[in-house]
């Protein structure tokens, strides 16, 4: 099934990705971000907070936003 993943870490890209049926939020997070702690991110499914074991559905919109974003005096 296809879902929209918005990764606001780094480049801030939004992409439609295919995931297997039954994929949970935690599994998607691990696939997209890797070994980093999920507590360092605000994860929203369809703009709402969600539990880690929430199963994703076709057309869901998942956004992953780091809680710590470092500004810099450039």
């Amino acid at each position, binding site marked *: 099934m296809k879902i929209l993943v918005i990764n*606001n870490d780094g480049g801030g*890209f939004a992409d439609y990705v295919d995931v297997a049926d039954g994929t949970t939020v935690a599994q998607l997070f691990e696939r997209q971000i890797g070994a980093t702690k999920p507590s360092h991110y605000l994860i929203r499914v*369809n703009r*709402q907070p969600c539990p880690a074991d929430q199963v994703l559905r076709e057309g869901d919109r998942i956004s992953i*936003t780091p809680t710590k974003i*470092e*500004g*810099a*005096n*450039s």
Partner: protein
Amino acid sequence: MTRQQRLFMRMAITIHERLHSEITNDKCFSLPAAAWQQCETINRKLRKASQRGWNLAADRLNHDLRLAVERLRNEVAELDHKLRPSGDEDRKASVGDIFADLVALHDEFEDVAFHRREHTLSVTTEAIELDGVYLGPFEIRLDWTDLLEGHPYNYRVIAVDPNPAAANESVTHPHVQDEGVCEGDGHQSIRKALEQGRLLDFFMIVANLLRTYNSGSPFVSLSDWHGVECADCGSTVCDDQRWTCEKCETTVCGECYYNCPGCDGIFCNECTTRCEGCDENHCSGCMKQCSRCDAELCQGCLDDNERCSDCHDQELEEETESDGSGHRRDDADAPIQPNRVGQVAVPA
């Protein structure tokens, strides 16, 4: 549909129209040459600092290089994304997306305001405190007339209960000056969110940036937020009146710094020594010891043989005394005028 929902829908339609009128067909891509050049420059300085054993400078440059590489990585990632065949248009927010964002903003933030005439949408964060320094709530105000314009023209960060840095009143947050944010790591994601009309993401990213302190690159560091103390007299020093000792790097005020007359460097009291000859404070590099009595004097107060004036005079006296004729040895061969009545021999 409630009154508020109708208002959100009108806002969503207006913003959507703006967003989709801004589609460009620009297919020219600029390579991240400036970011790469910055990496090269810092790396060159780092190599030089390491070779010369300037460890503090090398540490700082290593940190700067890490930031520059991060910037390069983000720019390469953005370029890679732009070069992909799928169109950006697919990902631009629909009216429904914008409507949903506007609804969700009320769940994420305490205060959300929309001003149709001014074309602004703003949210207010909770009171922010970083490292024990109260900075207060911030209003993030987005002007949605031109979402592609980019920072700093289309959004501002306004301190609601300002507690600016003592050294600079225009700095209301370590990463906010004159209501503009230095986006740092958030730059690409903020731009992407605005380009695609993802308003909720935009406000969440900026809010999280305001909740984060990067001690490596602030306008004013939090440790100096309430002013920097002069290391010598203890008074609070503002930015334009502070001097940094070139030796120990402590901050001193305009009243306490010393300008070494020998090398023109700036030093604190601790890092200078008063010359016994001219009575002026010099840095340790410009001070020498008299080769005879070990008194500390500046270069200007020592003679060619690195003797102080007392030792110089004393040495001359000793030389004179060691000469049996009572004349200075230097003058022994000097022509003298002939003796006459009432005249004595006087060196020429």
